């Protein structure tokens, strides 16, 4: 038992313990959270309730309408605009990752001036006033010297009023050198369509309503032209019409995601797709499916391309060619499209012309639902052949180069050596949101808004048969000290004064855009589709809807293709490849990747960690190789190999991919950045380094399927990071198979 002394001790110790515990808890108490009210509450914001702003996606050229979810001034999510005729509520992974463009830590936060040697990456932060003064002083001097034509402006292919503003600026300045460049462009297709259909603009391919789609290397579900719109259309064609399921035949040497979705895959030999199309055309005419009066003429023009002869070159069986031709002519409506893969050979235009005439011969699928629906002609594209730009650079014609949203150092073939050519230019100014390979070489960097912070509009090309204009409005306030491209040029115009003030009198780009749309409204306000009685009402509706379009059906405009006119454009033989067959046994086909496109998406971690749809590889470059061919060469999956072309070499791990012809290897474009933020830098390899400087002569578009390569196994360490670990079933009977013999016995 306790005595008195012990009792007191216990009580004392107990109280001290309790006090100590209480005090410790008091010390441990977390800092109180603060409630910070608005000073003046914005009228249109309720904290905790999202505002959605309609705008346009600029992650590729498709021009999908988007809606951006904004809470308390922060963009939180991007979705497709449900009423927009292009995106129809859908949005691809690149579009979703637009948030990481906006909040990317690699964004340029202030205007920069080069202080070190060019290309060393030593820059000094300056104010906007300084930056714009440097540029306008340079422009003034250039013009005073009478060298106004030495100002070159190179942008990505843009449309809408920004393009108009840039054009006006260049005109006022007295320079005709406003150009657009992009690796993945549709110049060949545009050219081929002009030859065959007399249409300068890209048409609407009505995949939605077709019954047989014959696609030559068009990966329309991931990258080709307008993937979101085509994915929607594809879904409708397959499952949206009860009792009717359209068929897809995909012709390509490498099985793309679209190929994997097709009913039939024709693993054609690279470079012979055009010939295959001609053999099909021959069979259509020969078999009597083409009923035109000039049937004899067509037969004469195509006589060299009998299925029997072409079968040898293309390695597609004669019966199969004939079968496709018959099915293509009998099925109505049917549609043949030629994609990125066939347009990227050095005879890209010829291939596309050959594919286009299939639509004509098999029952004139032009202007009908489920065929090719022409769009209204738009102005000529300002695409510049990369060779002529490089010539101008080497001759010293370019005095000042302004770049906007384009990265030619990364997206041109290694053999072009853009980097060396740019050295001849006295002043390079880059208007860019990110530090990339080209911006690194510039002398003055004026950081631009991303598309979520900027005003603008976009005239979709190709549209869906009727014109679609989408408005871009700032969903959030600028995150960094950046400016709108339009504002930069308006500011320059103000600094240069004189004639510019007359041409470009606006105070900022938003005002210019509104003024331009007021003109559009005044011109068209009598149309019955425009119900708004005042411009303010019209403008508000424009912003809340996301744009302006008028659904209308296309009158079936039949075309006539004359044999004599078309013959010179038909392919003469297989596309040529650099590197002889003996030393360089593999064809190299490069494809724009669904996540990185031409490389612009590589700095977004969401896209890096997104497994490739076919191989499930993440965070790197891989080389797709036929498993059997690899085994005979002693190459295992994950081995790092050296790919060498006559022009360069790269190293990357092998990914065994059964959807690959044995004589071909494929590499996705987009990785291998030397300078593009921490997520992209030093990751993978840039396969464009392997390419010769080869373009389609007719358009100047770069051919990225133009060389053969050899591969050597190396012992270099490297890692292939794949999400799907195993391609074997391990006896689990996941895919049930049956031999044709058993099938016949069972099903009769």
């Amino acid at each position, binding site marked *: 038992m306790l005595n008195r002394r*012990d009792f007191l*001790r*216990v009580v004392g*110790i*107990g*109280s*001290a*313990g*309790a*006090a*100590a*515990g*209480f005090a*410790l*808890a*008091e010390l441990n*108490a977390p800092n*109180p*959270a*603060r*409630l*910070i*009210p*608005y*000073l*003046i*509450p914005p009228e249109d914001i*309720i*904290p*905790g*309730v999202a505002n959605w702003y309609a705008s346009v996606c600029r992650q590729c050229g498709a021009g999908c309408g988007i809606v951006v979810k904004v809470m308390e001034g922060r963009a939180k999510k991007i979705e497709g605009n449900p009423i927009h005729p292009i995106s129809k509520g859908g949005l691809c992974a690149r579009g979703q990752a637009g948030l990481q463009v906006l909040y990317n830590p690699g964004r340029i936060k202030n205007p920069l001036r080069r202080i070190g040697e060019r290309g060393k990456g030593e820059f000094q932060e300056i104010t906007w006033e300084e930056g714009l003064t440097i540029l306008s002083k340079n422009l003034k001097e250039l013009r005073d010297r009478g060298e106004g034509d030495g100002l070159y402006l190179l942008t990505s292919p843009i449309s809408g009023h920004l393009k108009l503003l840039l054009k006006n600026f260049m005109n006022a300045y007295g320079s005709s050198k406003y150009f657009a460049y992009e690796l993945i462009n549709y110049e060949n297709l545009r050219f081929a369509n002009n030859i065959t259909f007399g249409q300068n603009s890209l048409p609407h391919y009505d995949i939605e309503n077709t019954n047989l789609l014959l696609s030559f290397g068009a990966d329309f579900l991931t990258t080709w032209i307008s993937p979101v719109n085509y994915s929607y259309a594809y879904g409708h064609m397959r499952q949206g019409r009860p009792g009717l399921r359209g068929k897809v035949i995909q012709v390509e040497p490498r099985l793309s995601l679209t190929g994997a979705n097709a009913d039939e895959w024709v693993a054609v030999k690279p470079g012979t797709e055009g010939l295959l199309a001609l053999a099909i055309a021959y069979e259509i005419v020969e078999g009597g499916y083409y009923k035109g009066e000039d049937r004899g003429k067509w037969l004469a023009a195509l006589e060299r391309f009998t299925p029997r002869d072409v079968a040898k070159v293309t390695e597609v069986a004669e019966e199969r060619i004939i079968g496709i031709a018959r099915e293509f002519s009998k099925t109505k409506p049917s549609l043949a499209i030629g994609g990125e893969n066939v347009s990227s050979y050095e005879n890209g235009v010829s291939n596309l012309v050959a594919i286009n005439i299939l639509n004509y011969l098999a029952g004139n699928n032009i202007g009908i639902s489920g065929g090719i629906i022409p769009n209204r002609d738009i102005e000529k594209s300002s695409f510049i052949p990369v060779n002529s730009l490089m010539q101008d650079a080497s001759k010293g014609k370019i005095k000042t180069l302004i770049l906007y949203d384009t990265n030619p150092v990364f997206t041109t073939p290694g053999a072009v050596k853009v980097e060396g050519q740019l050295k001849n230019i006295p002043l390079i100014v880059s208007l860019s949101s990110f530090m990339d390979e080209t911006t690194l070489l510039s002398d003055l960097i004026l950081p631009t808004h991303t598309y979520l912070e900027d005003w603008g509009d976009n005239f979709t090309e190709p549209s869906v048969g009727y014109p679609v204009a989408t408005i871009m409005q700032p969903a959030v306030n600028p995150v960094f000290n950046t400016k709108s491209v339009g504002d930069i040029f308006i500011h320059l115009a103000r600094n240069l004064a004189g004639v510019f003030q007359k041409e470009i009198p606006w105070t900022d780009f938003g005002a210019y855009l509104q003024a331009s749309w007021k003109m559009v409204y005044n011109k068209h306000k009598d149309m019955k589709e425009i119900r708004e009685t005042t411009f303010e009402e019209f403008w508000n509706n424009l912003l809340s809807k996301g744009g302006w379009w008028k659904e209308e059906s296309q009158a079936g405009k039949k075309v006539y293709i004359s044999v004599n006119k078309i013959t010179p454009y038909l392919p003469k033989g297989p596309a040529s490849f650099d590197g002889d067959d003996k030393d360089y046994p593999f064809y190299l086909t490069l494809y724009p990747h669904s996540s990185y496109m031409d490389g612009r998406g590589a700095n977004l971690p969401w896209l890096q960690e997104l497994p490739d749809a076919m191989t499930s590889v993440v965070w790197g470059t891989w080389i797709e190789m036929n498993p059997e061919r690899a085994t005979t060469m002693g190459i295992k999956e994950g081995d790092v190999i050296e790919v060498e072309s006559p022009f360069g070499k790269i190293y990357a791990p092998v990914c065994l991919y059964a959807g690959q012809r044995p004589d071909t290897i494929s590499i996705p474009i987009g990785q291998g950045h030397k300078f593009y933020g921490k997520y992209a830098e030093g990751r993978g390899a840039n396969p464009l380094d392997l390419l010769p400087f080869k373009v389609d002569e007719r358009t100047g578009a770069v051919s990225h399927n133009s060389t053969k390569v050899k591969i050597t196994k190396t012992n270099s360490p490297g890692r292939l990071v794949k999400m799907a670990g195993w391609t074997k079933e391990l006896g689990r009977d996941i895919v049930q198979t049956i031999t044709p013999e058993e099938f016949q016995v069972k099903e009769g």
Partner: protein
Amino acid sequence: MKRFLLYLTVAIITFTIGYNINLIYFSDRAPEQPINFSHKVHAADNSIPCLYCHIYADKSTISGVPSVQKCMGCHKIIKTDSPEIQKVVSYWEKKEPIPWIKVYNLPDYVYFSHKRHVKASVPCQRCHGDVAKMDRITRQTVIFGVPFLRVSPLKMGWCLDCHKNGAKEFIGGPVRNGTDCWTCHK
């Protein structure tokens, strides 16, 4: 030795008790706010409805602290000589928001919507206590000047209690899907 163990045990037990008493009853007692704002003066003496200031309570998940502009809306004229009001004025003139201290704080993993509760006509006092009697906002009932048990512990059991039984008086029965995990943990 045996005695020493006894002392140690007593010390550990009382330490734990002391620590927990603080945690449970005193951890979020009424903090001193940057301005000595009185709900009693506003809500009781002048009968200003809650939603006059907390304007988002029926529109959003949060109820909303009144903006400084809102305070100034009245206090440009009313009681301008009070030193506390002059503090408000100085914030307004500096164009700075008033950094109030949060008393009712829910963890990130709880989704709570004021709008749902206000629309179901749950009175504010049900969770926030009789604010109209408080000079300084507190989460404890005050008995003889000593802060005692909290009005609302903001613990899950307390939420569920009302979702299961207490909601009768407002919506006539238990909350639909009221005990579903995803109702509050989204």
